[in-house]
């Protein structure tokens, strides 16, 4: 019998640096891991490499000019980011959004959720080690959605399409058919991923039981979105505080049980089914009408006051806190970023895991660094 080496030699912890420019950190994010052999003992994350001062910049811009900067805080789900911002402006300026604009906004936000989750599936596949295949498949499906966005708003990522009061311009005439077409390929894509990853034994062995976080801890860290729902907390702004048309729509809030990496993946996949369901209901109820209010003021002025608007973005609660002292620009703007709060739990999730698993844990939170740093 050979005694285990720990008892014979003094071992020393090793510091390794991951990032800031590392392919698996999903952007410019740096973490310093303290490892004991293969096991992570401590994680110190460093953020701020992508800080552009978007909040402060927006305070020097009028409401319309700020929309473009909101796109850039959350580049994978720009429609959702714009939505919170324009809803905050609408609340301050007292604008009623017409029905048609609201339905279209709902459809676009859900489509954006789909495209963002596809991006997650692909990137997560690479983190797990299935190099290439899921990434390219996800890209294929996402491309169909992005093409549709390009036909509607003219841009593929930075849409700048929502305006305080409604939309910049109406959707093209063949909008409904095009969305149905895209949904068809999306449904096939979700099914592909279900078969490709969910039921794959290697994938499950790699993801099940690691990166656990309990429901209580997840709540304490202020997590939101699919990352907290995977721990069994049914928290969804769309259902808890319905905005847009979500009150009239029928959809389920998907929750997991185990709070591990696999559940965080699976929650997102199942959520995509719900998004497809939501879009279909919206399409059935989308009717001709106005897309900006009848009496749209030429100069948009907000009443003095403050609002906090929260919406459910693909990564969780995306909130905008806006203070106005009157006039056409915010006095103070604060973005409540879901990724930043979700990222706080990284240490708790990855301590006592293997180094290779720490990467998967990071991938499973689905962070967008530009949203973390703003």
């Amino acid at each position, binding site marked *: 019998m050979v005694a285990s080496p720990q008892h014979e030699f003094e071992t020393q912890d090793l510091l390794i640096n991951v990032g800031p420019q590392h392919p698996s950190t999903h952007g410019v994010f740096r973490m310093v891991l303290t490892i004991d052999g293969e096991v992570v003992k401590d994680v110190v994350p460093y953020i701020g490499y992508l800080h552009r001062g978007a909040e402060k910049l927006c305070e020097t*811009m009028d409401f*319309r*000019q*700020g*929309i*473009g*900067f909101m796109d*850039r805080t959350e580049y994978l789900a720009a429609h959702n980011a714009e939505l919170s911002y324009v809803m905050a402006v609408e609340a301050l300026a007292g604008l009623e959004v017409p029905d*048609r604009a609201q339905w279209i906004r709902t459809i676009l936000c859900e489509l954006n959720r789909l495209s963002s989750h596809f991006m997650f599936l692909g990137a997560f596949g690479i983190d797990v080690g299935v190099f290439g*295949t899921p990434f390219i*498949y996800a890209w*294929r499906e996402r*491309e169909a959605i992005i093409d549709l966005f*390009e*036909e*509607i*708003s*003219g*841009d593929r990522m*930075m849409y*700048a399409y929502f*305006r305080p*009061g*409604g*939309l*910049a*311009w*109406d*959707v*093209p*005439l063949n909008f409904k058919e095009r969305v149905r077409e895209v949904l068809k390929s999306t449904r096939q894509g979700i099914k*592909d991923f279900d*078969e*490709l*990853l969910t*039921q*794959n*034994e*290697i*994938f*499950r062995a790699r993801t099940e039981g690691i990166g656990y976080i309990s429901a209580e801890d997840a709540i304490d860290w202020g997590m939101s979105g699919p990352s907290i729902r995977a721990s069994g907390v049914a928290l969804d702004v769309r259902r808890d505080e319905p905005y847009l048309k979500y009150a009239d729509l029928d959809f389920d809030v998907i929750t997991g049980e185990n709070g591990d990496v696999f559940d965080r993946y699976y929650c997102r996949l199942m959520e995509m089914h719900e998004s497809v369901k939501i879009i279909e209901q919206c399409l059935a109820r989308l009717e*001709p*009408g*106005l*897309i*900006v209010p009848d009496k*749209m003021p030429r100069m948009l002025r907000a009443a003095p006051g403050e609002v906090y608007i929260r919406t459910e973005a693909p990564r969780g609660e995306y909130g905008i806190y806006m203070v106005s002292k009157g006039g056409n620009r915010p006095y103070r703007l604060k973005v409540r970023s879901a990724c930043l709060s979700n990222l706080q739990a990284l240490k708790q999730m990855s301590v006592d895991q293997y180094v290779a698993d720490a990467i998967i844990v990071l991938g499973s939170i689905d962070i967008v660094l530009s949203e973390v740093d703003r």
Partner: protein
Amino acid sequence: MKGIAKSLMVTLSTFTRKPVTRDYPNYHRPLPERDRAFPLLLWDKEVDEPFCTGCHACERACPVECMTVLMKDNPNHKSNGGDSSRRKIIDKFWIDYARCMRCNICVEVCNFDAIAMNNTWQGHETSVHDRKDLVMDLQQLLAQSHGGAIKEWVPTLGQANE
């Protein structure tokens, strides 16, 4: 093992699907008419001069301040014996494409429909070796519209089409 076999079936089934990739530099997919590349100025073919009067509206509305506009008296105006009804006209115009964030605001504020987002491939393929070359002057901004190679799509704010 069953799961792995199923995964392999998915990969195999893609062989039967039509390829979605395109051989990009050799093939340019058709762009939708709303496609937004970078803003350019439009040419009034009737009186053979730019639409732009140099009114500075776009310059003031641009969030990233990437435009510079200078106006001058129009030598082609009726009072000078010309056939244009524009009293003032654009003298010099620069847009720094490196700074522009393609937000479409300049198009929305222009009262003369003088500026539009480029919706052709030429607008997207603007790579240069020096960033200075991305500062476009009046001639470069007008060239494409003067030559007639742009399908104009100028959106009206809040226009409904049904």
